């Protein structure tokens, strides 16, 4: 009963918080394939010469207050695969002195005889689609700083570590990094290096720091570079606001309501049964020797 009293309000509050969040989701991986490549997406994405640019239009359903977070969502991408998760070297990321420590980064540890910085499969497969937003033909700036954890920037990714020998191997994975900027400033990498728990995940791309009116249309010019076609993964672009509880997810509220409701129901049931067939607490007639007169 107590639980239900506490839980139902929390549930309502969470649900309201979740409902307040405005979210725009746009799936683009099939639409951004030129017609002549339909059915052969893989060769399109692997062809360095093909034009990857693609434009999309999004309609804002409701007023969106800034900051509006821009996410990319990948599907069927096993960032949590053990081989993938382990393929990094925190030491190397932290300080320039450890550039040579590439243990665990195999097979992306060294290229052309010298160590790769940052090494490992995670960094190597960095997401490389790019988005450019414009509202009414006016470019919306996407702020890509401050999207990672502060501690990651300060402590884990050194400000004297510069990408070196990166994406120089025979296989090109994802994005190339600007060798002139230290890793601590390359926040897209920092975000990407925080591997997701599930094969479907969103990662923060940046923030739009202006309010968007309802029914305004945003046009997005994106570079569809990242290969999800080989494993049939979806790509989505997500714009979302947040509330105190985070993004849009009704589940927590529903779960609270369910548990609270269940408790309420059980409590009521007990009360009803108790009223119908009361048992005085400490009633000795419930002792086993009183209930079965013949003893045991």
């Amino acid at each position, binding site marked *: 009963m107590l639980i239900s009293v506490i839980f139902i309000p929390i549930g309502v509050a969470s649900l309201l918080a979740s409902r307040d969040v405005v979210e725009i989701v746009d799936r683009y991986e099939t639409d951004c394939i030129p017609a002549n490549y339909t059915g052969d997406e893989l060769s399109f994405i692997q062809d360095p010469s093909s034009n990857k640019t693609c434009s999309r239009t999004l309609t804002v359903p409701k007023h969106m207050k800034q900051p509006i977070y821009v996410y990319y969502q990948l599907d069927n991408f096993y960032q949590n695969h053990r081989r993938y998760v382990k393929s990094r070297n925190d030491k190397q990321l932290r300080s320039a002195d450890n550039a040579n420590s590439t243990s665990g980064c195999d097979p992306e540890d060294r290229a052309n005889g010298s160590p790769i910085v940052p090494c490992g499969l995670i960094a190597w497969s960095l997401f490389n689609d790019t988005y450019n937003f414009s509202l009414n033909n006016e470019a919306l700036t996407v702020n890509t700083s401050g999207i990672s954890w502060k501690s990651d920037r300060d402590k884990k990714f050194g400000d004297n570590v510069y990408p070196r020998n990166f994406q120089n191997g025979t296989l090109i994975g994802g994005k190339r990094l600007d060798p002139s900027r230290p890793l601590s400033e390359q926040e897209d990498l920092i975000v990407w290096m925080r591997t997701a728990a599930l094969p479907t995940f969103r990662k923060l791309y940046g923030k739009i720091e202006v309010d968007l009116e309802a029914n305004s249309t945003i046009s997005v010019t994106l570079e569809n570079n990242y290969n999800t076609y080989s494993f049939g993964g979806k790509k989505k672009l997500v714009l979302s606001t947040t509330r105190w509880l985070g993004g849009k997810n009704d589940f927590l509220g529903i779960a609270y309501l369910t548990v609270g409701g269940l408790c309420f129901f059980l409590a009521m049931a007990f009360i009803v049964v108790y009223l119908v067939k009361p048992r005085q607490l400490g009633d000795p007639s419930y002792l*086993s020797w009183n209930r079965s007169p013949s003893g045991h």
Partner: protein
Amino acid sequence: MTRRARIREKLRWSNIYTFSCIRPNVLESEGGAHSLQGEGFSRIVHCNQPRVHRKKPLKYPSNYISTTKYNIITFLPKAIFEQFRRVANLYFLLAASLSLTPITPFTPVSMIAPLAFVVGLSMAKEALEDWRRFIQDMKVNSRKVCIHKGDGMFGYKQWQKIRVGDVVKVEKDQFFPADLLLLSSSYEDGICYVETMNLDGETNLKIKRSLEVTLPLGDDEDFKDFRGTIKCEDPNPNLYTFVGNFEYDRQIFALDPSQILLRDSKLRNTGYVYGVVIFTGHDSKVMQNSTKSPSKRCRIEKKMDYIIYILFTLLVLISLISSIGFAVKTKFQMPDWWYLQPKHTDDLYNPKRPAVSGFFHMVTALILYGYLIPISLYVSIEVVKVLQAMFINQDIQMYDEETGNPALARTSNLNDELGQVDTILSDKTGTLTCNQMDFLKCSIAGVSYGVVSSEVEIAAVKLMAGDLNEQNPDISNVPVQTSSTHDFWGNNGTNIEASEIELEAGITPKIGKSRKHLIKGFSFEDDRLMDGNWCNEPNAKVILLFFRILALCHTAIPEPKEETGGFNYEAESPDEGAFLAAAREFGFEFCKRTQTSVFIRERYPSSGHPIEREFKVLNLLEFSSKRKRMSVIVRDEGGQILLLCKGADSIIFERLAKNGRVYEEDTTRHLNEYGEAGLRTLVLAYRKLDESEYSAWNSEFFKAKTTIGPERDALLERVADLMEKDLILIGATAVEDKLQKGVPQCIDKLAQAGLKIWVLTGDKMETAINIGFACSLLRQGMKQIVISTANVDALASVPEKTLLLCLMTDQAVRENILMQITNASQMIKLEKDPHAAFALIIDGKTLSYALEDDMKLQFLGLAVDCASVICCRVSPRQKALVTRLVKEGTGKTTLAIGDGANDVGMIQEADIGVGISGVEGMQAVMASDFSIAQFRFLERLLVVHGHWCYKRIAQMVCYFFYKNIAFGLTLFYFEAFTGFSGQSVYDDRYMLLFNVILTSLPVISLGVFEQDVSSEVCLQFPALYQQGPRNLFFDWYRIIGWMANGLYASLIIFFLNLIIFYDQAFRSGGQTADMAAVGTTMFTCIIWAVNCQMALTMSHFTWIQHLFVWGSIGTWYIFLLLYGMSSPILSGNAFRILVEALAPAPIFWSATLLITAACNLPYLTHISFQRSFNPMDHHVIQEIKYYRKDVEDQRMWTRERSKARQETKIGFTVRVEAKIRQFRGRLTKKYSTLSVQTGS
């Protein structure tokens, strides 16, 4: 001077004793020496030259003994080996070693650290126990003994310093430090008495004698130049054989066991002995004999193994599922996952060789899901049991103030088994009874004397008084506390006193409340005999003779007491002590024994001064269990030769002369009365002998005495037989074998707790039955089924039977017994009356048949149907066999309790062995699992500690499985989302802490402190004990319930978390949850859920439990904080996770709350449902206590208390009820007849 004086004091017992002390002279010649050739006879001992034995060929082990399992060097390898004999530990070791290879899903330290912790803790416990053993050894090793240091000087040395060849002097009541060859003793003829209780449990003294040649070595100085050589057998465990030769003065003498004094036996009744050390330390017979007590495992632990097997199966199953999943994913999907670079892989993830990868993954998975197997379970259980044992040891209510012995849990791993005992097998002497005899009554010349009631009588009277109490409300208007009947033994003192007064006032008015006699062994009271009044009795002459027999017919030695001027008697058996005490009180004080005479101070009322009379002891035909009688032939001061005899009634009665049967009828009646009163009886008789008759017999006797060869004993017996006939009966004695304090009460309570009690005793049937009555195991109106071979036995013992006939009779006996058993079973089956109770009484001989394979099941079936079972005349081996039969036949837990070495077999065989650390030796205690000072503590040990420990351990084990399933399965679910790659969602260090720190302390506190009801309630409601034997808390229903609960919790924790943290931002900063955040939240939920579950499970809270439960949760947050603050290299993605990411996110806290509540909801519902509608006994009692109803409504409380017992057919309370039924029956009959009369 002193020496001479002492020698004069010495007695030559060999002249007195008939059977034990004959020294066949011929054997001492050279021809009699054993030829000691060949294997096994290599030992050479140079007497008095211990230095010789320091060098190689003759170097024997020192007298240092060590019973420790390990020493400093062997400890590590041995203890580690012991640890890894457990399957679970071996599995974890394997996992830990694999964790060093790339297969592992975890870092090596997270595998090795818990294992090291767990194994280390177990080993520390082993080390501690071994240390205790070492201390005990040291105590023994540093005992001092007087040893010859050369030049006739003796000095004290530690036992461990003794070497082979040393001459030692052992003084009275000391233990022998090693196996010795007896050289001489304080008695002139080299006799000494030895108590071998520690070896075989027999309390009677044994006689050892030295060789004739070493007799002159009677003083310290004689050993100055003493030299001799002993050649003998090598060390062996056989206690009753010894073969060796002694070379002395260039002559060789044969040695046999009667010259060997064994280590751990005790010198009694003898001032001192000299001996040469033959076997030292571990060579000594007793050490060779010591067997390792079998390691016992408790039921829960056995069942636990099954559960672990189930979990292993589950483990293998889910590993198989995930490795197949992995192989499939690797083969078909991984080539598409370009980000994994599938072309550049080793065998672990090779899409081209999925089978190999699958196999490797299988190994990985087995390690990964290892969290299903609770690694810390064993060690936690061990820790808990040690702490429980500490509680048992510290229980002040099981501390015996008289002896200063507390209860002692010697092995801690059987605590919970104490709560599941079904059958108690008890020894009698020393366990139920004190083995202290009190002279209580006698029958002289057909008149019974003695007014003091035996305990049995008192109990019977009390019972009748109780009856009156119960019936009074119906009959009279006297207000009586109806509750008191069941409260005889309660704490309420007034009740007992009331009934006691009533009984004593009403039934035996002659005795006052207090027995003024506090003389040991004497509780007799009758004015007709006391204070010399016997002279005025009609049969004064017979009475005089009676007293003289008491004072003369024995083998005791008087010892003057300094303070009082009285005497202490060193008697072979407590009965004899009681007789002598009685004789003294009657005015016949045995004061001196010399070589040939016994002196008695007789005090007659007519003359004030005691007269000292001398009786010349001509022959002494001592007691043996075969003869069941002893006689002395004495010549009194008037020259009259008398044969005085005492013995068992059956034996004496058949040897009476025709004119000696005057009192037979009366005496027999009295004997029956005494028997019913639970007393031990002996019959006294005498015979007057003519000089000529005696000398004729004596010469024959002497001839027999000096015969050599195996037939000597038989011959002697036959000659003795000739003399012990035509006896004249005088009377009988009745000695009370006192019950130990609180025994009937304890048995009553145990019976109410639903336990069956069997008595296994070496005593004869009559005594056993008496004690059965005294303990309320038997009562009038119980149908006694006596199974014996008596009738057939007579047939078989006819000596002229041929072999064939013997075989036939053997067959006949068997059939006869079988028939008796079947008849009895039939009888029980046909019995309609629900209150009818049966008692089975069986003797040892019959038992030997009944225990044979073809019959034992029928026997067991019969025995189980009977309310009480008494086995008499059983040998130690049979005790063990019966125990095994019960244990294996019924499959229930058995507890054996005993105090002597003869109970060791039984104690080791039973599921639980309890030793009484009372008067008798330590052998039983050493073999036991628990030792208590008195039988009555068994009640508390079982009903309180057993009950608690059982519940604690059962709940603890269930909870362990719950929490590990709840945790382990989340790993598996996550697997499915990572393409079965073997990645875990939690940081390695979380998992490392999970079992070892974060969840172990609360469960340990549950195991140690949990009490469902307080100890008083346990004692007041013995029926609660039945929860244990019926295994209500560890049946499969409950285990599976807990497992299902674990499964449910794992599902809730995993999927709720996953959906809550699915893909959206989890906080207002817009960040999405990565694996570290999800994993940490999930782990937090688990910690909360399992600890709250623990809090719900506990019913008894002290600050310790609160500290541990909430402290564990607190520790988790503190750990997370500290871990986050450590270097990011160490903490990886968990760096500052609490401070920066999770703590500011409301979703983290609300998810924790939601999931914790959701996890515990089913259990909460379950217990509320159970409590509301189907409460168990302890629930109700908890409520009663909580609402203080027991204080407010005392009447209800006592009523319930009286009802709270198992239906039983033994014990005191039942006796009362039987009486009540009888009474009611009579009443109704009376009423009906009345009504009939009025009607007509």
